[in-house]
Protein backbone atom coordinates (compact mmCIF):
# COMPACT_ATOMS: atom_id res chain seq x y z
CA UNK A 1 0.00 0.00 0.00
CA UNK A 2 2.70 2.42 0.93
CA UNK A 3 4.05 2.54 -2.63
CA UNK A 4 0.84 4.31 -3.56
CA UNK A 5 2.09 7.41 -1.87
CA UNK A 6 5.52 8.09 -3.11
CA UNK A 7 7.69 10.96 -2.14
CA UNK A 8 6.94 13.07 -5.12
CA UNK A 9 3.19 12.80 -4.78
CA UNK A 10 3.56 13.82 -1.19
CA UNK A 11 5.66 16.77 -2.09
CA UNK A 12 3.15 17.76 -4.74
CA UNK A 13 0.27 17.22 -2.40
CA UNK A 14 1.75 19.55 0.14
CA UNK A 15 2.45 22.08 -2.54
CA UNK A 16 6.12 21.88 -1.89
CA UNK A 17 7.93 24.21 -4.22
CA UNK A 18 11.61 24.69 -4.81
CA UNK A 19 12.85 27.91 -3.28
CA UNK A 20 13.22 29.53 -6.68
CA UNK A 21 11.73 28.30 -9.92
CA UNK A 22 13.85 25.57 -11.37
CA UNK A 23 13.76 24.59 -15.01
CA UNK A 24 13.27 20.86 -15.66
CA UNK A 25 16.78 20.42 -17.04
CA UNK A 26 18.24 22.12 -13.98
CA UNK A 27 16.56 19.62 -11.73
CA UNK A 28 17.93 16.83 -13.91
CA UNK A 29 21.44 18.29 -13.79
CA UNK A 30 21.25 18.62 -10.01
CA UNK A 31 20.25 14.98 -9.68
CA UNK A 32 23.05 13.96 -12.01
CA UNK A 33 25.69 15.80 -10.04
CA UNK A 34 24.65 14.21 -6.76
CA UNK A 35 25.38 10.79 -8.28
CA UNK A 36 29.06 10.02 -7.55
CA UNK A 37 29.40 7.21 -10.06
CA UNK A 38 27.92 9.37 -12.82
CA UNK A 39 30.26 12.26 -12.06
CA UNK A 40 33.20 9.83 -12.05
CA UNK A 41 32.05 8.56 -15.46
CA UNK A 42 31.70 12.08 -16.78
CA UNK A 43 35.19 13.10 -15.60
CA UNK A 44 36.68 9.93 -17.07
CA UNK A 45 34.90 10.52 -20.35
CA UNK A 46 36.08 14.14 -20.49
CA UNK A 47 39.67 12.95 -19.92
CA UNK A 48 39.31 10.57 -22.87
CA UNK A 49 37.93 13.40 -25.01
CA UNK A 50 40.74 15.76 -23.95
CA UNK A 51 43.26 13.01 -24.66
CA UNK A 52 41.78 12.62 -28.12
CA UNK A 53 41.87 16.37 -28.74
CA UNK A 54 45.23 17.37 -27.29
CA UNK A 55 47.11 14.10 -26.73
CA UNK A 56 48.71 13.99 -30.17
CA UNK A 57 49.90 17.61 -29.78
CA UNK A 58 51.50 16.99 -26.39
CA UNK A 59 52.98 13.60 -27.16
CA UNK A 60 54.51 14.27 -30.54
CA UNK A 61 55.35 10.65 -31.40
CA UNK A 62 53.54 9.18 -34.42
CA UNK A 63 52.01 5.79 -33.55
CA UNK A 64 53.12 4.40 -36.91
CA UNK A 65 56.79 5.27 -36.24
CA UNK A 66 59.14 2.52 -35.23
CA UNK A 67 60.12 3.50 -31.69
CA UNK A 68 62.28 0.62 -30.66
CA UNK A 69 62.77 -3.10 -30.92
CA UNK A 70 59.64 -5.18 -31.62
CA UNK A 71 57.69 -6.60 -28.70
CA UNK A 72 59.62 -4.73 -26.00
CA UNK A 73 58.25 -5.05 -22.48
CA UNK A 74 57.13 -1.83 -20.79
CA UNK A 75 60.27 0.15 -19.80
CA UNK A 76 61.46 3.77 -19.56
CA UNK A 77 61.57 4.56 -23.28
CA UNK A 78 58.29 2.83 -24.06
CA UNK A 79 56.20 2.92 -20.85
CA UNK A 80 53.60 0.55 -22.27
CA UNK A 81 55.99 -1.45 -24.44
CA UNK A 82 56.11 -1.85 -28.21
CA UNK A 83 54.21 -3.98 -30.68
CA UNK A 84 55.44 -6.57 -33.21
CA UNK A 85 56.84 -3.83 -35.49
CA UNK A 86 58.43 -1.93 -32.62
CA UNK A 87 55.74 0.80 -32.57
CA UNK A 88 55.10 2.54 -29.23
CA UNK A 89 51.89 1.27 -27.55
CA UNK A 90 51.49 4.43 -25.41
CA UNK A 91 51.38 6.73 -28.42
CA UNK A 92 49.03 4.24 -30.08
CA UNK A 93 46.66 4.40 -27.12
CA UNK A 94 46.86 8.21 -27.07
CA UNK A 95 46.46 8.63 -30.83
CA UNK A 96 43.77 5.96 -30.91
CA UNK A 97 41.46 7.97 -28.67
CA UNK A 98 40.61 10.49 -31.37
CA UNK A 99 39.57 8.19 -34.25
CA UNK A 100 37.89 5.77 -31.86
CA UNK A 101 35.76 8.52 -30.36
CA UNK A 102 35.05 10.17 -33.70
CA UNK A 103 33.89 6.91 -35.24
CA UNK A 104 31.84 6.01 -32.17
CA UNK A 105 30.16 9.39 -31.99
CA UNK A 106 29.47 9.89 -35.70
CA UNK A 107 28.20 6.34 -36.05
CA UNK A 108 25.90 6.91 -33.07
CA UNK A 109 24.66 10.17 -34.56
CA UNK A 110 23.99 8.29 -37.78
CA UNK A 111 22.08 5.54 -35.94
CA UNK A 112 20.19 8.17 -33.92
CA UNK A 113 19.05 10.11 -36.97
CA UNK A 114 17.86 6.97 -38.77
CA UNK A 115 16.35 5.41 -35.66
CA UNK A 116 14.49 8.45 -34.35
CA UNK A 117 13.21 9.45 -37.80
CA UNK A 118 11.79 6.01 -38.48
CA UNK A 119 10.48 5.55 -34.96
CA UNK A 120 8.93 9.01 -34.83
CA UNK A 121 7.18 8.66 -38.18
CA UNK A 122 5.94 5.16 -37.37
CA UNK A 123 4.66 6.17 -33.94
CA UNK A 124 3.12 9.46 -35.04
CA UNK A 125 1.28 8.34 -38.16
CA UNK A 126 0.46 4.82 -37.05
CA UNK A 127 -1.65 2.52 -39.23
CA UNK A 128 -0.17 1.31 -42.49
CA UNK A 129 2.91 3.52 -42.30
CA UNK A 130 3.69 2.19 -38.85
CA UNK A 131 3.13 -1.35 -40.02
CA UNK A 132 5.48 -0.96 -42.97
CA UNK A 133 8.21 0.82 -41.03
CA UNK A 134 8.11 -1.69 -38.21
CA UNK A 135 8.41 -4.65 -40.62
CA UNK A 136 11.35 -2.80 -42.15
CA UNK A 137 12.88 -2.38 -38.70
CA UNK A 138 12.34 -6.01 -37.89
CA UNK A 139 14.11 -6.96 -41.10
CA UNK A 140 17.21 -5.15 -39.86
CA UNK A 141 16.77 -6.55 -36.40
CA UNK A 142 16.84 -10.19 -37.46
CA UNK A 143 20.10 -9.73 -39.38
CA UNK A 144 23.10 -10.27 -37.14
CA UNK A 145 24.39 -6.70 -37.12
CA UNK A 146 28.08 -7.54 -36.96
CA UNK A 147 27.83 -9.85 -39.96
CA UNK A 148 25.80 -7.27 -41.83
CA UNK A 149 28.33 -4.53 -41.05
CA UNK A 150 31.14 -6.85 -42.18
CA UNK A 151 29.38 -7.44 -45.49
CA UNK A 152 28.97 -3.70 -46.06
CA UNK A 153 32.61 -2.98 -45.26
CA UNK A 154 33.77 -5.94 -47.33
CA UNK A 155 31.73 -4.90 -50.39
CA UNK A 156 32.95 -1.31 -50.28
CA UNK A 157 36.44 -0.08 -49.51
CA UNK A 158 36.94 0.08 -45.74
CA UNK A 159 37.18 3.86 -45.43
CA UNK A 160 36.23 6.00 -42.45
CA UNK A 161 32.87 6.97 -43.99
CA UNK A 162 31.94 3.39 -44.88
CA UNK A 163 32.77 2.18 -41.38
CA UNK A 164 30.60 4.90 -39.85
CA UNK A 165 27.72 4.12 -42.20
CA UNK A 166 28.10 0.38 -41.70
CA UNK A 167 27.84 0.76 -37.95
CA UNK A 168 25.10 3.39 -38.18
CA UNK A 169 22.85 1.42 -40.53
CA UNK A 170 23.08 -1.76 -38.49
CA UNK A 171 22.56 -0.45 -34.97
CA UNK A 172 19.62 1.95 -35.25
CA UNK A 173 16.81 -0.52 -34.62
CA UNK A 174 16.59 -0.31 -30.79
CA UNK A 175 16.42 3.48 -31.02
CA UNK A 176 13.63 3.28 -33.59
CA UNK A 177 11.62 0.97 -31.35
CA UNK A 178 12.13 3.19 -28.33
CA UNK A 179 11.25 6.37 -30.24
CA UNK A 180 8.12 4.73 -31.63
CA UNK A 181 6.99 3.59 -28.19
CA UNK A 182 7.49 7.08 -26.75
CA UNK A 183 5.68 8.72 -29.66
CA UNK A 184 2.75 6.33 -29.37
CA UNK A 185 2.48 7.16 -25.69
CA UNK A 186 2.91 10.92 -25.91
CA UNK A 187 0.74 11.55 -28.98
CA UNK A 188 -2.30 10.52 -26.91
CA UNK A 189 -1.68 13.29 -24.39
CA UNK A 190 -4.07 16.19 -24.54
CA UNK A 191 -1.47 18.87 -25.10
CA UNK A 192 -0.80 17.33 -28.50
CA UNK A 193 -4.50 17.55 -29.28
CA UNK A 194 -4.46 21.14 -28.02
CA UNK A 195 -1.65 21.99 -30.43
CA UNK A 196 -3.63 20.40 -33.26
CA UNK A 197 -6.66 22.45 -32.29
CA UNK A 198 -4.49 25.54 -32.72
CA UNK A 199 -3.72 24.45 -36.25
CA UNK A 200 -0.20 23.11 -35.76
CA UNK A 201 1.16 21.12 -38.72
CA UNK A 202 2.35 17.56 -38.30
CA UNK A 203 6.01 18.51 -38.63
CA UNK A 204 5.62 20.93 -35.73
CA UNK A 205 3.80 18.34 -33.66
CA UNK A 206 6.59 15.83 -34.25
CA UNK A 207 9.60 18.08 -33.74
CA UNK A 208 8.43 20.75 -31.32
CA UNK A 209 5.69 19.14 -29.30
CA UNK A 210 6.28 15.39 -29.02
CA UNK A 211 10.03 14.98 -29.52
CA UNK A 212 11.12 17.17 -26.57
CA UNK A 213 8.92 15.07 -24.32
CA UNK A 214 10.30 11.82 -25.75
CA UNK A 215 13.91 12.89 -25.30
CA UNK A 216 14.79 11.71 -21.76
CA UNK A 217 14.69 7.96 -22.46
CA UNK A 218 16.21 8.52 -25.89
CA UNK A 219 19.15 10.47 -24.46
CA UNK A 220 19.91 7.62 -22.09
CA UNK A 221 19.72 5.07 -24.90
CA UNK A 222 21.91 7.20 -27.18
CA UNK A 223 24.54 7.66 -24.48
CA UNK A 224 24.74 3.94 -23.86
CA UNK A 225 24.84 3.43 -27.64
CA UNK A 226 28.16 5.34 -27.84
CA UNK A 227 29.73 2.79 -25.52
CA UNK A 228 28.49 -0.20 -27.48
CA UNK A 229 29.55 1.44 -30.74
CA UNK A 230 33.14 1.67 -29.47
CA UNK A 231 33.05 -2.06 -28.83
CA UNK A 232 31.38 -2.69 -32.18
CA UNK A 233 34.07 -0.70 -33.97
CA UNK A 234 36.72 -2.61 -32.04
CA UNK A 235 35.19 -5.85 -33.24
CA UNK A 236 35.30 -4.69 -36.85
CA UNK A 237 38.87 -3.45 -36.46
CA UNK A 238 39.87 -6.65 -34.76
CA UNK A 239 38.72 -8.48 -37.89
CA UNK A 240 40.78 -6.05 -39.93
CA UNK A 241 37.74 -4.54 -41.60
CA UNK A 242 38.50 -0.88 -40.99
CA UNK A 243 40.62 1.77 -42.64
CA UNK A 244 44.25 0.56 -42.31
CA UNK A 245 45.56 4.14 -42.24
CA UNK A 246 43.69 4.92 -38.99
CA UNK A 247 45.04 3.64 -35.70
CA UNK A 248 42.06 2.84 -33.46
CA UNK A 249 42.20 0.83 -30.24
CA UNK A 250 40.34 -2.01 -31.82
CA UNK A 251 42.81 -2.11 -34.69
CA UNK A 252 45.73 -2.25 -32.27
CA UNK A 253 44.24 -5.31 -30.60
CA UNK A 254 43.43 -6.87 -33.95
CA UNK A 255 46.97 -6.43 -35.28
CA UNK A 256 48.57 -7.83 -32.15
CA UNK A 257 46.22 -10.74 -31.61
CA UNK A 258 48.86 -13.32 -32.60
CA UNK A 259 51.31 -12.06 -29.99
CA UNK A 260 49.00 -12.13 -27.00
CA UNK A 261 50.80 -14.93 -25.19
CA UNK A 262 54.33 -13.63 -25.81
CA UNK A 263 53.56 -9.93 -25.28
CA UNK A 264 50.47 -9.36 -23.12
CA UNK A 265 50.99 -5.57 -23.16
CA UNK A 266 50.29 -5.27 -26.86
CA UNK A 267 46.60 -6.07 -26.44
CA UNK A 268 46.00 -5.33 -22.75
CA UNK A 269 46.53 -1.56 -22.82
CA UNK A 270 44.33 -0.78 -25.83
CA UNK A 271 41.82 -3.23 -24.36
CA UNK A 272 41.81 -1.35 -21.04
CA UNK A 273 41.33 1.90 -22.94
CA UNK A 274 38.20 0.46 -24.60
CA UNK A 275 36.98 -1.05 -21.36
CA UNK A 276 37.31 2.16 -19.38
CA UNK A 277 35.82 4.40 -22.04
CA UNK A 278 32.81 2.11 -22.40
CA UNK A 279 32.52 1.98 -18.62
CA UNK A 280 32.62 5.76 -18.27
CA UNK A 281 29.85 6.06 -20.83
CA UNK A 282 27.77 3.40 -19.12
CA UNK A 283 28.14 5.26 -15.81
CA UNK A 284 27.02 8.49 -17.46
CA UNK A 285 24.04 6.69 -18.99
CA UNK A 286 23.10 5.21 -15.64
CA UNK A 287 23.39 8.60 -13.97
CA UNK A 288 21.18 10.19 -16.64
CA UNK A 289 18.66 7.42 -16.17
CA UNK A 290 18.39 8.17 -12.47
CA UNK A 291 18.38 11.91 -13.06
CA UNK A 292 15.54 11.74 -15.57
CA UNK A 293 13.52 9.39 -13.45
CA UNK A 294 11.17 11.68 -11.57
CA UNK A 295 10.45 9.10 -8.88
CA UNK A 296 13.97 9.52 -7.56
CA UNK A 297 14.09 13.26 -7.90
CA UNK A 298 13.96 15.56 -4.86
CA UNK A 299 15.24 12.91 -2.54
Amino acid at each position, binding site marked *: MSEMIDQQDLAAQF*GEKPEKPEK*PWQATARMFYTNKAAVFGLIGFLIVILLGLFGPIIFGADPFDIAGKPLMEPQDANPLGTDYLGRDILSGVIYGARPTMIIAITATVCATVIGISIGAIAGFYGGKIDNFLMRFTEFFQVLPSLVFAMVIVAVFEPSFLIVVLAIGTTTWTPLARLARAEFLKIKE*REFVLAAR*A*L*GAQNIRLILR*VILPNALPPLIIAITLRVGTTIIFEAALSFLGLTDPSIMTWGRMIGLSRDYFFEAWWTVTFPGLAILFTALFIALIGDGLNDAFNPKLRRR
Partner: protein
Amino acid sequence: MTNKNLLSVEGLEVHFKLKRPHLFASQPTLYAVDGVSFEIVRGQTLGLVGESGCGKTTSGLSVLRLVEPTGGKIVFDGVDLRSLGADALLDMRKRMQIIFQDPYSSLNPRQTAGDIVKDPLLIQKVGNPKEREERVSELFTLVGLQANQKELFPHQFSGGQRQRICIARALALNPDFIVCDEPVSALDVAIQAQILNLLCKLQEDLNLTFLFISHDLAVVQHICDEIAVMYLGAIVEKTNRKKLFNNPRHPYTRALLSAVPTRRSSKKSNRIRLEGDIPNPVNRPSGCRFHTRCMYSQEQCKFEEPQLVEKQPGHWEACHFETTNL
Protein backbone atom coordinates in the same frame (compact mmCIF):
# COMPACT_ATOMS: atom_id res chain seq x y z
CA MET B 1 -26.72 38.05 -43.48
CA THR B 2 -25.77 36.88 -40.05
CA ASN B 3 -27.46 33.84 -38.74
CA LYS B 4 -28.72 33.66 -35.18
CA ASN B 5 -26.96 30.36 -34.75
CA LEU B 6 -23.18 30.37 -34.72
CA LEU B 7 -22.95 26.63 -35.01
CA SER B 8 -25.41 24.14 -36.35
CA VAL B 9 -24.73 20.45 -36.45
CA GLU B 10 -26.91 18.07 -38.39
CA GLY B 11 -26.84 14.30 -38.20
CA LEU B 12 -23.26 14.19 -36.98
CA GLU B 13 -21.81 10.68 -37.09
CA VAL B 14 -18.49 9.37 -35.87
CA HIS B 15 -18.12 5.64 -36.43
CA PHE B 16 -14.80 4.02 -35.66
CA LYS B 17 -13.87 0.85 -37.46
CA LEU B 18 -12.28 -1.50 -34.96
CA LYS B 19 -9.79 -4.33 -35.42
CA ARG B 20 -11.30 -7.63 -36.45
CA PRO B 21 -11.19 -10.06 -33.53
CA HIS B 22 -10.04 -12.77 -35.96
CA LEU B 23 -9.31 -13.01 -39.65
CA PHE B 24 -12.79 -14.06 -40.84
CA ALA B 25 -14.86 -11.95 -38.47
CA SER B 26 -16.78 -9.00 -39.78
CA GLN B 27 -15.20 -5.71 -38.84
CA PRO B 28 -16.88 -4.33 -35.71
CA THR B 29 -17.88 -0.68 -35.65
CA LEU B 30 -17.95 1.59 -32.64
CA TYR B 31 -20.86 3.99 -32.94
CA ALA B 32 -19.34 6.76 -30.83
CA VAL B 33 -21.60 9.48 -32.19
CA ASP B 34 -24.63 8.33 -34.10
CA GLY B 35 -26.69 11.08 -35.66
CA VAL B 36 -26.45 14.09 -33.38
CA SER B 37 -28.04 17.43 -34.28
CA PHE B 38 -27.98 20.70 -32.39
CA GLU B 39 -27.65 24.44 -32.84
CA ILE B 40 -25.90 26.96 -30.64
CA VAL B 41 -27.06 30.56 -30.60
CA ARG B 42 -24.33 33.18 -30.73
CA GLY B 43 -23.14 34.13 -27.25
CA GLN B 44 -24.93 31.24 -25.59
CA THR B 45 -23.87 27.96 -24.05
CA LEU B 46 -25.09 24.54 -25.03
CA GLY B 47 -24.49 21.83 -22.48
CA LEU B 48 -23.87 18.26 -23.60
CA VAL B 49 -24.51 15.96 -20.65
CA GLY B 50 -24.16 12.23 -20.32
CA GLU B 51 -22.24 9.45 -18.69
CA SER B 52 -18.90 8.10 -19.84
CA GLY B 53 -19.02 6.48 -23.25
CA CYS B 54 -22.07 8.42 -24.39
CA GLY B 55 -20.07 10.19 -27.09
CA LYS B 56 -20.15 13.71 -25.69
CA THR B 57 -16.41 14.23 -25.88
CA THR B 58 -16.17 12.69 -29.34
CA SER B 59 -18.98 15.02 -30.45
CA GLY B 60 -17.02 18.01 -29.17
CA LEU B 61 -13.81 16.90 -30.86
CA SER B 62 -15.49 16.11 -34.16
CA VAL B 63 -17.22 19.48 -34.28
CA LEU B 64 -13.71 20.96 -34.38
CA ARG B 65 -12.62 18.22 -36.79
CA LEU B 66 -10.02 17.01 -34.30
CA VAL B 67 -11.69 13.67 -34.87
CA GLU B 68 -12.92 13.30 -38.44
CA PRO B 69 -16.70 12.84 -38.56
CA THR B 70 -17.88 9.99 -40.79
CA GLY B 71 -21.18 11.64 -41.60
CA GLY B 72 -23.37 14.68 -41.10
CA LYS B 73 -22.99 18.38 -41.54
CA ILE B 74 -21.24 20.97 -39.36
CA VAL B 75 -22.01 24.56 -40.29
CA PHE B 76 -19.99 27.17 -38.44
CA ASP B 77 -21.02 30.76 -39.14
CA GLY B 78 -22.36 29.80 -42.57
CA VAL B 79 -19.35 27.70 -43.56
CA ASP B 80 -19.59 23.95 -43.97
CA LEU B 81 -16.55 22.78 -41.99
CA ARG B 82 -16.46 19.31 -43.48
CA SER B 83 -15.92 20.71 -46.97
CA LEU B 84 -12.89 22.79 -45.96
CA GLY B 85 -9.39 21.94 -47.14
CA ALA B 86 -6.36 21.94 -44.89
CA ASP B 87 -5.50 25.65 -45.39
CA ALA B 88 -9.02 26.93 -44.93
CA LEU B 89 -9.40 24.76 -41.86
CA LEU B 90 -6.16 26.11 -40.42
CA ASP B 91 -7.58 29.59 -40.85
CA MET B 92 -10.86 28.56 -39.26
CA ARG B 93 -9.03 27.17 -36.22
CA LYS B 94 -8.41 30.75 -35.10
CA ARG B 95 -12.12 31.09 -34.48
CA MET B 96 -12.77 27.86 -32.61
CA GLN B 97 -10.85 26.53 -29.66
CA ILE B 98 -11.00 23.87 -27.01
CA ILE B 99 -10.34 23.56 -23.26
CA PHE B 100 -9.69 20.07 -21.96
CA GLN B 101 -10.63 18.29 -18.79
CA ASP B 102 -7.25 17.43 -17.42
CA PRO B 103 -5.05 20.49 -16.97
CA TYR B 104 -2.19 18.14 -16.09
CA SER B 105 -2.08 16.42 -19.42
CA SER B 106 -3.16 19.28 -21.68
CA LEU B 107 -0.08 21.42 -21.05
CA ASN B 108 3.27 20.51 -22.54
CA PRO B 109 5.51 19.89 -19.50
CA ARG B 110 8.59 21.09 -21.39
CA GLN B 111 7.27 24.58 -22.16
CA THR B 112 6.97 27.55 -19.83
CA ALA B 113 3.51 28.97 -19.18
CA GLY B 114 4.39 32.03 -21.27
CA ASP B 115 5.48 29.89 -24.23
CA ILE B 116 2.34 27.78 -23.99
CA VAL B 117 0.14 30.84 -24.27
CA LYS B 118 2.34 32.26 -27.04
CA ASP B 119 2.19 29.05 -29.08
CA PRO B 120 -1.12 29.80 -30.83
CA LEU B 121 0.26 33.16 -32.01
CA LEU B 122 3.36 31.50 -33.40
CA ILE B 123 1.46 28.69 -35.09
CA GLN B 124 -0.95 31.11 -36.73
CA LYS B 125 1.87 33.63 -37.38
CA VAL B 126 0.16 36.51 -35.63
CA GLY B 127 2.08 39.75 -34.93
CA ASN B 128 5.77 40.39 -34.34
CA PRO B 129 7.73 39.20 -31.30
CA LYS B 130 7.01 42.34 -29.31
CA GLU B 131 3.28 42.29 -30.02
CA ARG B 132 3.14 38.61 -29.15
CA GLU B 133 4.85 39.27 -25.82
CA GLU B 134 2.33 42.02 -25.06
CA ARG B 135 -0.59 39.81 -26.02
CA VAL B 136 0.67 37.08 -23.67
CA SER B 137 0.84 39.58 -20.78
CA GLU B 138 -2.65 40.78 -21.62
CA LEU B 139 -3.98 37.22 -21.62
CA PHE B 140 -2.31 36.45 -18.30
CA THR B 141 -4.09 39.42 -16.72
CA LEU B 142 -7.36 38.44 -18.37
CA VAL B 143 -7.43 34.98 -16.79
CA GLY B 144 -6.09 36.13 -13.44
CA LEU B 145 -2.46 35.00 -13.59
CA GLN B 146 0.53 37.10 -12.56
CA ALA B 147 2.84 38.36 -15.30
CA ASN B 148 5.86 37.08 -13.36
CA GLN B 149 4.52 33.54 -13.63
CA LYS B 150 5.33 33.43 -17.35
CA GLU B 151 8.68 31.79 -16.77
CA LEU B 152 7.30 28.94 -14.67
CA PHE B 153 6.70 25.44 -15.92
CA PRO B 154 3.31 23.73 -15.69
CA HIS B 155 4.28 21.49 -12.76
CA GLN B 156 4.89 24.59 -10.67
CA PHE B 157 1.24 25.63 -10.86
CA SER B 158 -1.79 24.33 -8.97
CA GLY B 159 -4.65 22.63 -10.83
CA GLY B 160 -6.79 25.75 -11.00
CA GLN B 161 -3.93 27.90 -12.25
CA ARG B 162 -3.13 25.33 -14.90
CA GLN B 163 -6.69 25.46 -16.12
CA ARG B 164 -6.28 29.25 -16.30
CA ILE B 165 -3.26 28.74 -18.55
CA CYS B 166 -5.36 26.47 -20.76
CA ILE B 167 -8.06 29.14 -20.94
CA ALA B 168 -5.49 31.81 -21.81
CA ARG B 169 -4.14 29.61 -24.60
CA ALA B 170 -7.64 29.03 -25.95
CA LEU B 171 -8.35 32.78 -25.92
CA ALA B 172 -5.07 33.82 -27.53
CA LEU B 173 -6.44 34.00 -31.07
CA ASN B 174 -9.69 35.75 -30.10
CA PRO B 175 -11.97 32.85 -30.95
CA ASP B 176 -15.77 33.07 -31.25
CA PHE B 177 -16.44 29.54 -30.16
CA ILE B 178 -14.90 27.35 -27.45
CA VAL B 179 -15.55 23.71 -26.74
CA CYS B 180 -15.19 23.23 -22.97
CA ASP B 181 -14.63 19.53 -22.41
CA GLU B 182 -15.28 18.88 -18.70
CA PRO B 183 -13.20 21.93 -17.77
CA VAL B 184 -13.79 21.71 -14.03
CA SER B 185 -14.23 18.02 -13.26
CA ALA B 186 -10.56 17.46 -12.44
CA LEU B 187 -10.46 20.40 -10.03
CA ASP B 188 -11.09 20.72 -6.32
CA VAL B 189 -14.55 21.98 -5.44
CA ALA B 190 -13.47 25.36 -4.16
CA ILE B 191 -11.43 25.88 -7.34
CA GLN B 192 -14.30 24.77 -9.61
CA ALA B 193 -16.26 27.85 -8.60
CA GLN B 194 -13.34 30.12 -9.49
CA ILE B 195 -13.01 28.62 -12.96
CA LEU B 196 -16.75 28.55 -13.65
CA ASN B 197 -17.05 32.20 -12.67
CA LEU B 198 -14.09 33.04 -14.87
CA LEU B 199 -15.66 31.26 -17.85
CA CYS B 200 -18.97 33.08 -17.31
CA LYS B 201 -17.26 36.44 -17.06
CA LEU B 202 -15.15 35.84 -20.16
CA GLN B 203 -18.23 34.75 -22.09
CA GLU B 204 -19.98 38.00 -21.29
CA ASP B 205 -16.98 40.24 -21.86
CA LEU B 206 -15.81 38.63 -25.09
CA ASN B 207 -19.18 37.45 -26.42
CA LEU B 208 -18.07 33.85 -26.60
CA THR B 209 -20.17 30.87 -27.60
CA PHE B 210 -19.59 27.68 -25.62
CA LEU B 211 -20.21 24.02 -26.19
CA PHE B 212 -19.98 22.83 -22.61
CA ILE B 213 -19.42 19.10 -22.16
CA SER B 214 -19.93 17.68 -18.70
CA HIS B 215 -21.21 14.76 -16.71
CA ASP B 216 -22.12 17.00 -13.79
CA LEU B 217 -25.71 18.17 -13.98
CA ALA B 218 -25.26 20.77 -11.26
CA VAL B 219 -22.45 22.45 -13.18
CA VAL B 220 -24.42 22.25 -16.41
CA GLN B 221 -27.45 23.78 -14.79
CA HIS B 222 -25.29 26.57 -13.50
CA ILE B 223 -23.61 27.53 -16.75
CA CYS B 224 -25.74 26.44 -19.74
CA ASP B 225 -28.61 28.08 -21.60
CA GLU B 226 -29.62 25.02 -23.60
CA ILE B 227 -28.95 21.44 -22.60
CA ALA B 228 -28.82 18.23 -24.61
CA VAL B 229 -28.73 14.88 -22.79
CA MET B 230 -26.81 12.15 -24.61
CA TYR B 231 -27.02 8.41 -24.22
CA LEU B 232 -24.95 5.93 -26.24
CA GLY B 233 -24.09 8.30 -29.07
CA ALA B 234 -27.43 10.03 -29.51
CA ILE B 235 -29.32 12.92 -27.97
CA VAL B 236 -32.35 11.69 -26.01
CA GLU B 237 -33.61 15.06 -24.79
CA LYS B 238 -32.89 18.64 -25.68
CA THR B 239 -34.38 21.82 -24.28
CA ASN B 240 -33.53 24.94 -22.35
CA ARG B 241 -32.25 24.88 -18.84
CA LYS B 242 -35.48 25.80 -17.14
CA LYS B 243 -37.58 23.15 -18.86
CA LEU B 244 -35.04 20.39 -18.41
CA PHE B 245 -34.82 20.73 -14.66
CA ASN B 246 -38.41 21.78 -14.10
CA ASN B 247 -40.00 19.22 -16.33
CA PRO B 248 -37.59 16.49 -17.40
CA ARG B 249 -39.31 14.20 -19.92
CA HIS B 250 -37.06 11.35 -20.98
CA PRO B 251 -36.81 8.43 -18.52
CA TYR B 252 -33.02 8.59 -18.77
CA THR B 253 -32.90 12.28 -17.91
CA ARG B 254 -35.11 11.69 -14.92
CA ALA B 255 -32.99 8.77 -13.73
CA LEU B 256 -29.87 10.87 -14.16
CA LEU B 257 -31.37 13.74 -12.19
CA SER B 258 -32.49 11.52 -9.38
CA ALA B 259 -29.10 9.82 -9.16
CA VAL B 260 -27.35 13.09 -8.42
CA PRO B 261 -26.61 13.14 -4.71
CA THR B 262 -28.42 15.96 -2.96
CA ARG B 263 -27.64 17.63 0.30
CA ARG B 264 -31.23 17.48 1.50
CA SER B 265 -32.07 14.26 3.22
CA SER B 266 -35.80 14.80 2.62
CA LYS B 267 -35.43 14.09 -1.09
CA LYS B 268 -33.79 10.74 -0.62
CA SER B 269 -36.99 8.79 -0.98
CA ASN B 270 -38.83 8.31 -4.23
CA ARG B 271 -35.89 7.74 -6.48
CA ILE B 272 -35.50 6.17 -9.87
CA ARG B 273 -32.61 3.74 -9.84
CA LEU B 274 -31.18 2.44 -13.09
CA GLU B 275 -30.19 -1.19 -13.14
CA GLY B 276 -26.98 -2.38 -14.70
CA ASP B 277 -24.35 -0.51 -16.66
CA ILE B 278 -24.24 1.44 -19.87
CA PRO B 279 -24.20 -1.02 -22.81
CA ASN B 280 -21.13 -1.24 -24.97
CA PRO B 281 -21.38 1.18 -27.91
CA VAL B 282 -20.02 -1.56 -30.19
CA ASN B 283 -23.02 -3.79 -29.51
CA ARG B 284 -25.57 -1.08 -28.97
CA PRO B 285 -29.08 -2.33 -28.30
CA SER B 286 -31.52 -2.50 -31.19
CA GLY B 287 -34.47 -0.12 -31.29
CA CYS B 288 -34.39 2.47 -28.55
CA ARG B 289 -30.85 2.51 -27.16
CA PHE B 290 -32.14 2.97 -23.64
CA HIS B 291 -34.64 0.10 -23.61
CA THR B 292 -32.32 -2.32 -21.76
CA ARG B 293 -32.31 -0.09 -18.68
CA CYS B 294 -35.62 1.71 -19.04
CA MET B 295 -38.37 1.00 -16.51
CA TYR B 296 -41.09 1.84 -19.06
CA SER B 297 -39.70 -0.37 -21.81
CA GLN B 298 -42.31 -2.02 -24.11
CA GLU B 299 -42.12 -4.46 -27.02
CA GLN B 300 -42.04 -1.58 -29.51
CA CYS B 301 -38.89 -0.16 -27.89
CA LYS B 302 -36.88 -3.24 -28.79
CA PHE B 303 -37.40 -2.87 -32.51
CA GLU B 304 -38.20 0.70 -33.37
CA GLU B 305 -35.81 3.55 -32.73
CA PRO B 306 -37.58 6.68 -31.50
CA GLN B 307 -36.67 9.93 -33.26
CA LEU B 308 -35.88 13.18 -31.51
CA VAL B 309 -39.12 15.14 -31.94
CA GLU B 310 -40.42 18.39 -30.54
CA LYS B 311 -42.99 17.20 -28.03
CA GLN B 312 -43.64 20.62 -26.56
CA PRO B 313 -42.51 23.95 -27.96
CA GLY B 314 -38.74 24.00 -27.56
CA HIS B 315 -38.64 20.65 -25.81
CA TRP B 316 -37.30 17.74 -27.84
CA GLU B 317 -37.40 14.13 -26.76
CA ALA B 318 -36.59 10.77 -28.31
CA CYS B 319 -39.14 8.40 -26.78
CA HIS B 320 -42.18 6.53 -28.12
CA PHE B 321 -44.27 7.32 -25.08
CA GLU B 322 -45.33 10.07 -22.77
CA THR B 323 -43.63 8.67 -19.70
CA THR B 324 -44.05 11.72 -17.52
CA ASN B 325 -47.65 10.80 -16.72
CA LEU B 326 -46.97 7.16 -15.92
